[in-house]
């Protein structure tokens, strides 16, 4: 019996260690009397109790803003900054619904309770960094719309048949902005705000949830809603938000897209399912008032979303490295700009071991500075060895290798 038990443990350890990415997660569906539904569908007294419209709105605002980075003829520094820090009723967007909204992207950038409530210094620094991306785009890249990019000169560069617009350092600011927001907005709000006990259990949230006391005129308790808001930053624009895996990767240009991309790599094929299942089970746990199960699911989501950001950072650094080696600067700058944004997003990851980021501010700053400091002209001069060093340093915090992250198949 002992042998058998030992052997079984041994096997399951083996299984877990080699297939942590391949686990189909079905074992999670029944856990401590909490049963997850087949889809992300929850009701109270027959009424839908799931709501995350604010997240959907912010994803769509971010999408329009990032597209507007390339509106050379119509966008200005002021118009882009107005989209970023939208004020209710201002005609900043193409969509009337977005214009009418009282939400905006900037106020939720680097704004999580856990990381930034008592760290407004860094929060302000990060918001200002995103502002500076806009300024660089309009002051440096816009005037050189019809200039061929060269070391030290902003302008156009070909990436295959695509045209990229880069700074004098070879950076694509729209990519820095978009991929940086995946961390600073989506992941930060999800992992460090809505899934944290400071928010989920704030004030009377627990007793209200225990007693089914819903918000005024709503079908949900505050705790349920907070959980749904976390969900919304990943699945808020899904074609069918109750069954979002059917279209994962196609529903936005932010976190949804890249969870889909990572899940498309056979090394990580179950990651989207694992995240979705954890969201479902955690929400069911709130309904069942089982907060242990809830927090266990939050931990899974934190780990997996952090992995997605790290995998994608390495993926782009390594693809950029290959392109640099082939002297295909256009392709390299595009990849490395995406990589830069994902590296910047590492700051917003969440390590369950210590409830802090996997990477400190200074670690992330060292990475991004290293990318630009191999020579006078930033990415034009970047050394492949630098990109390997950063990639290895990122992978060292996780159980996957640089090679696994670098190849998508």
């Amino acid at each position: 019996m002992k042998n058998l038990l030992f052997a079984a443990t041994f096997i399951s350890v083996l299984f877990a260690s080699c297939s942590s990415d391949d686990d189909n997660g079905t074992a999670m569906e029944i856990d401590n009397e909490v049963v997850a539904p087949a889809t992300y569908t929850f009701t109270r007294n027959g009424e839908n109790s799931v709501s995350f419209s604010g997240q959907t709105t912010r994803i769509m605002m971010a999408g329009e803003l990032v597209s507007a980075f390339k509106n050379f003829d119509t966008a200005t520094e002021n118009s882009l900054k107005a989209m970023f820090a939208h004020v209710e009723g201002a005609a900043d967007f193409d969509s009337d619904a977005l214009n009418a909204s009282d939400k905006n992207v900037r106020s939720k950038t680097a704004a999580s309770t856990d990381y930034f409530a008592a760290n407004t210094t860094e929060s302000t620094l990060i918001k200002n960094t995103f502002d500076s991306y806009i300024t660089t785009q309009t002051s440096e890249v816009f005037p050189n719309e019809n200039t061929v990019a060269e070391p030290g000169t902003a302008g156009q560069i070909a990436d295959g048949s695509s045209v990229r617009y880069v700074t004098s350092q070879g950076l694509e600011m729209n990519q820095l902005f978009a991929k940086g927001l995946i961390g600073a907005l989506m992941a930060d709000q999800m992992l460090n705000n809505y899934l944290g006990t400071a928010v989920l259990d704030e004030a009377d949230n627990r007793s209200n949830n225990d007693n089914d006391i819903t918000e005024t005129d709503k079908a949900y308790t505050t705790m349920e809603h907070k959980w749904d808001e976390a969900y919304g930053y990943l699945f808020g624009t899904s074609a069918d938000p109750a069954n979002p895996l059917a279209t994962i990767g196609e529903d936005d240009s932010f976190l949804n897209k890249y969870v889909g991309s990572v899940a498309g790599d056979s090394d990580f094929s179950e990651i989207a399912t694992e995240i979705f299942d954890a969201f479902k089970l955690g929400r069911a746990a709130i309904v069942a008032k089982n907060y242990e199960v809830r927090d266990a699911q939050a931990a899974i989501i934190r780990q997996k979303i952090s992995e997605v950001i790290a995998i994608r950072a390495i993926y782009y650094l390594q693809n950029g490295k290959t392109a640099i080696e082939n002297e295909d600067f256009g392709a390299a700058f595009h990849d490395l700009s995406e990589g830069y944004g994902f590296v910047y997003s590492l700051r917003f990851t969440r390590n369950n071991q210590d409830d802090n980021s996997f990477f400190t501010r200074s670690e992330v700053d060292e990475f991004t500075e290293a990318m630009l400091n191999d020579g006078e002209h930033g990415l034009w001069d970047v050394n492949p060895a630098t990109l390997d060093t950063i990639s290895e340093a990122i992978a060292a915090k996780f159980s996957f290798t640089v090679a696994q992250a670098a190849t998508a198949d």
Partner: protein
Amino acid sequence: MKHLFLILSTLVIVWSCSTDDDPQTQEEPSASFNRQAMLVNWADKIIVPAYRDFQQSTNELQRRTVEFTATPNEVNLATLRNQWITSYRAFQKVSMFEIGRAEQLRFRDRLNTYPVNVAEVEDFIATGDYNFELPSTNDAQGFPAMDYLLNGLAPTDAEIANIYFGSNGLAHKAYLEAVVESIHVLATDVYNNWETSFRDDFVANNGFSASASVDKLTNDFIFYFEKSLRAGKIGIPAGVFSNEPLPQNVEGLYYGYLSKILALDALDAAEGFFRGRTNNTGNVYGESFETYLDFLNTIKNGADLSDLIIAQFEEARVAIELLNTDFTEQIATDNTAMLNAYDELQRNVILLKVDMLQALSIDVDYVDTDGD
């Protein structure tokens, strides 16, 4: 017994999780095919002669352009147009060799991005303010821009010629001349580079690595076959990659009777390269993918892989020959025939990209971009 099961299952688990981690190493095939001889045949019997023909055709193209802009009439327009067709067809023989200088110059994108962006061309004509080195101007230059300038400005030749006439025609003349000059400069640059230095570098780089000439040009060839021939000439206009067919995306849209000719030229060139055919014509063959596969004795489903590929070239040729001379007509009347031609080309993409590359131990060095 239990233990055996345990060990077995452990083995299965370990085995199954390590399959994804195989390093992508490339090994030199045990028996060594003379790659250098293949490179010499490619360079001296196919690539350099094809660039020479193309370059010379652009000399003539420039001469005919000057003749037309000096005296814009129907006769000179027709002569220039014929030379445009000759050069466009010669281009089909070099387009797949996007390596070295051609790659640096973005040769194919600058000479043959279609459909032409008419609004951009009209803007450039009106303002005279453009720079063909900018990647954003790919779709306003090259042969597709000439197609519009020679065939698309008006319904009749008399009216087209008239647009270039007198002081009102100066802007059009200048733009036509600039487009042709750019084609000529690009063609000359790449050809001279092959003749003066690149041929020797290319042949000397005869190793077995991702940066070796064989590996690189093989990838360029298959990329061309997949993206430019299969997709660009047939698949995209037939709507394979969109919700509806896109007849406006055929090659040589404004002339109207060129899409099939160019597709067949490209197919012939691709097959000629596969078979190592001297000057891409006739019956003299040298070292090539065909002889390389035969040397390795590559068998697929009991048949010679090189035979399968050659037979599939023929299937594709038969399918394309069935099409209307003008693909826009074909798409309008019976798009299924277009789709069939696409499928026949796609079958060869698989044979080349999967089976041939596996046999030659060459890794694919390009991926479909993730679209952002």
